[in-house]
């Protein structure tokens, strides 16, 4: 009589079946839902099918630009209509889904909602995909994320003439995005600190490789003692959060006194810590 292993073979078959099933599921998860070739098309399609919204979309370098033409944007008090807010929110949600499930290389997405009927005002929202990932994975909080999303409001009478969006926008790059974000954070900070509104504008000077901030402060002492520390503190906070080191320094100019201050990147931390004391 031969020697047998009674149950080994069926067990092996079951194990193999399970393994194949797991691998099948695993492999099916690898294919992107929105391949880069059909990215814009797919986004437009989802917006139309799921939210009955007609949008336009285009990938500009590594920035996905989505345009929402709105007929009803503002009420008589020039407040944004809830319906418009809802539509912008829906498009942002769809765009987030699409950028996560594509193989296209996208760093930013920009959602532009414009009143093409009455005011020709546009609201632009710029979001960094890595920030969105961090939010989804719970590495940053919702409040922090809100601070990282850029919001701009512009006026462009061209909308009233031609509702067709031309996508003649500059792709967003990280240094510029950070410069704008720092300015947005500073303005927010000043709003809570000061009784009056102080507008700080920002840019990233690609020739000098530095952040450039401007403001109008009549009192030079205030500029140096009150405003400059806040600006530099926010710069340090943001560049550290993004681990951004590709800059030489920060220049802050007071357009009122025509005086400016330049701090080298290496001295920023020290400057901030000294001013804290």
């Amino acid at each position, binding site marked *: 009589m031969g020697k047998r292993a*009674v149950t080994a073979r069926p067990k092996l078959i079951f194990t193999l079946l399970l393994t194949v099933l797991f691998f099948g*599921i695993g492999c099916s998860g690898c*294919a*992107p*839902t929105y391949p880069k070739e059909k990215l814009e098309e797919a986004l437009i399609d989802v917006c139309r099918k799921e939210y009955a919204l007609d949008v336009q979309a285009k990938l500009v370098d590594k920035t996905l630009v989505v345009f929402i033409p709105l007929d009803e944007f503002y009420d008589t008090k020039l407040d944004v209509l809830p319906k418009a807010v809802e539509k912008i929110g829906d498009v942002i949600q769809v765009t987030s889904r699409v950028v996560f499930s594509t193989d296209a290389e996208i760093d930013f997405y920009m959602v532009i909602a414009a009143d093409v009927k009455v005011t020709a005002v546009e609201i632009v929202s710029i979001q960094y995909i890595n920030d969105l990932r961090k939010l989804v994975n719970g590495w940053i909080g919702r409040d922090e994320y809100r601070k990282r999303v850029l919001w701009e409001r512009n006026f462009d009478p061209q909308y009233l003439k031609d509702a067709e969006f031309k996508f003649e926008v500059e792709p967003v790059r990280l240094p510029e995005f950070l410069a704008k974000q720092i300015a947005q954070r500073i303005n927010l900070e000043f709003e809570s600190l000061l009784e009056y509104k102080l507008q700080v504008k920002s840019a990233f000077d690609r020739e000098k490789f530095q952040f450039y901030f401007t403001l109008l402060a009549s009192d030079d002492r205030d500029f140096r003692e009150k405003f400059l520390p806040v600006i530099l503190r926010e710069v340090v906070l943001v560049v550290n959060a993004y681990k951004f080191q590709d800059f030489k320094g920060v220049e802050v100019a007071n357009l009122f006194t025509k005086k400016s201050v330049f701090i080298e990147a290496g001295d920023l931390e020290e400057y901030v810590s000294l001013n804290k004391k």
Partner: protein
Amino acid sequence: MNFWHSFLRKLKIFVEDHWVVMAIIFVAGILLMLSAIGMSKLESYARISALANMPLWILVMLISGAITAFIYVSVMFGYMGKMKQQKVDPSKVNVLFSDVIGIDEAKEEAREVVQLLLDRTRLKKIGGRLIKGILMVGPPGCGKTYLAKAIATETGVPFLSMSGSEFVEMFVGVGASRIRKMFNKARRLAYSHNGCIIFIDEIDAVGRVRAFSFGGGQETNNTLNQLLVELDGLAGSANIVIIGATNAAEEHLDPALIRPGRFDRKIYFNFPDVDGREQLFRYYLSKVQCDPGMDISRLARQSVGKTPADIENIIKESALIATRYKKDSIGHKELSEAMERIELGLKHRMKMSDQERTMTAYHEAGHLIVTYFLHPYDDVFKASIIPRKGSLGVVHHQPREEFHSLNLNHALAQIKVSLAGYAAEKIQFGITTTGVSSDFRQAMNWAHHMVWKFGMGISGHIGDYTMIPPEQLSETIKERLNEETNQILQKCVKEVKELLVKEKEILDRFARELLEKEELEYDEIEAIFKEYGKKSCHGAA
């Protein structure tokens, strides 16, 4: 056709045995399929997130499931119904009949059983009755379990191995339930593999004579009853053979268990004879490095009454000793030391006074000389005055061959050897020590049995007087028998004293040698006697 028939049978049994597992796998498979379909509808990001989290979910589920199952089983069943049923894969046991040495008769019986198990169809055609059970009876270490393993390998059928004690529980019904489970499993295995062997080691744990009284015996009775019922139930087509092994004498087992029709065949194991021991030494020595030209027949003679397990142990122990001496191979010295360590125990280095040592040396020399001159059957292999196992010295003598019945000369020789220590002390010092107590016990035991039990007394009384309750024996008889016992002892001690006085020179010499060397080996002892031109009573010198 035959293949498909066999395959379908196995499949049927497999499904019956594993339907729970299969159902779980089926449901899990369906759920996985549904999950796969659902996931395919998700966007790739959500899908990847789910897949990334899946191992963690599975791990958490498995851990929580295992904890729940453990708590449930522990609380609800307390492992009571669980039985460690050991299904042995014959191919892994790998003990062949050729490996079973020294128990040739038992092996032949077993070989026949294997043949019957394999030629079942032929036997049925002839109309022969199938063997249901084999009972292996014999002292421990004689190879019962080893032979059972060989049967498993040679038959190649599934082999269920259990210990009798596994059926004994304090809860009524558990043992019987385990018996039922074991036989059910055996029936299934026999159905799918055309045969199965159940081996119950130490069957006396469950098969001892039933006590028909209230109390603790109830559970054992139930278990045994179930075993008997199951043995009767084997009359069907199932090709199952049950092998029981026990160290207990047959009369300790329940008569119902050992009657024909249950354990039909009994295989008796005995200590291996001189040839068997020689084969065993040869077999185990072949597995280790040993000195060439070793006198294996002398080893066999030296190890009377040793079981195969003892012999294996001797070889193992001698290998350890050789390693300790930093030797590359085992020699006779190591074997002798190993045997001595097993037989006599470890040496204790105690501080003894010179007088104590001298008295011990004379005591042991007395034993040695009397054994040499007066014992017709034993050889002296060693004399020592190194304390061991609570004695201050020892003379290691062994019969040259095993005897199954002892005659008068043997009994008298045993008494004389026992009294020789006392006589030597008396002759040399005029006084004796307490060291004679165990010798006296032995001598008295022999003399008492000679008179009271074996009819070997001087007056010619015959019969076993120990059978009669002491209160029914007359005082006269008792006095007479005790007197005779004393006479035997006196006669023996007189003879021993005469011998030792006559051989006083040799006695002194051995005492001196022992004091000087502490131990004397067989060869040294023989050489000294030869020096004096003496021969042992059986002419071995």
